[in-house]
């Protein structure tokens, strides 16, 4: 629903980078690999947290 706060595998805090990543790589047309490099998300365990995430708040909120 919301981005996981930390990486499941290593425990690094990844959520703080989500909004910028979403804006640049998902909404924008930048290369996700380059965006992650610039954000300093180096390990592949942390990278998959952001790459594979989908926000679902907008999907569920009408059913409150």
């Amino acid at each position, binding site marked *: *629903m*919301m*981005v996981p*706060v*930390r990486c499941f595998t*290593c*425990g*690094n*805090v990844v*959520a*703080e980078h*989500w*909004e910028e990543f979403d804006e640049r790589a998902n909404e924008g047309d930048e290369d996700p690999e380059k965006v992650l490099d610039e954000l300093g998300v180096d*390990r592949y365990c942390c990278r998959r947290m952001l790459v594979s995430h989908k*926000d679902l*708040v907008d999907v*569920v*909120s009408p059913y*409150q």
Partner: protein
Amino acid sequence: MSAEYDVEFVEREDREARFLVRGVTPGFANGIRRAMVADVPTMAIDTVRFVENSSVMFDEQLALRLGLVPLTTPPVGEFGEDETVTLSIDVEGPATAYSGDLVSSDDLVEPADENVPIIELKDGQRLEAEADAVIDRGKDHAKHQGGVAVGYRHLQRVEVEGDLPEFEDEESRIIRGVIEDDGELVSTSEFDHDLSNRYPGKEVRIEDVPNAFVFHVETDGSFPIEELVTRAADTIAERATELEDAVQL
């Protein structure tokens, strides 16, 4: 500790560092690593009292998210194991509640990252909660882990043995970590982790330097690297004295 015990930084940033430790046994190096991950007490939110939560997520889910937010940890002795610090959050939609919206009752304990989204609130939704942070160890819950992705490798020494035969194809020799070359420490990223870039046409031999370890340490922001490592060493000392007292007749 042996006489040639020595610590030298290779890379040093705010939350990430690499340093070389000489003159320790492999057992002690691993002890330090384990202490950094599981034995250094850090602050984290442990109980949350929800006054209002009309967001799309359940109280328990939000409590977990709040618990995982890293908090700055006060100096040693400032807080006991059973003392708490109260943080409160009150956000009304349409807005996103961030970790930076947490208001702490103590300046020593603040969210280490301000931009962690807790929950996106739509029009009319509201999150009002009070949270108690406690000090505890990583072995009890991952939220109390101060060190993230802590590891070490042997320091490796590279020696040039001679030239490669003239017509032999040059093969890449991949190596990661830090190498020692004539007493100089070189990170393998400087030559793209490939020794054939650094010593073209040469035959090289790699060997581990005994009792020298290159640590790679990251913190979640609870405290700086130096603090984490020294506190880890302190917890080992504490355990050692505890053991000594326990076996004394």
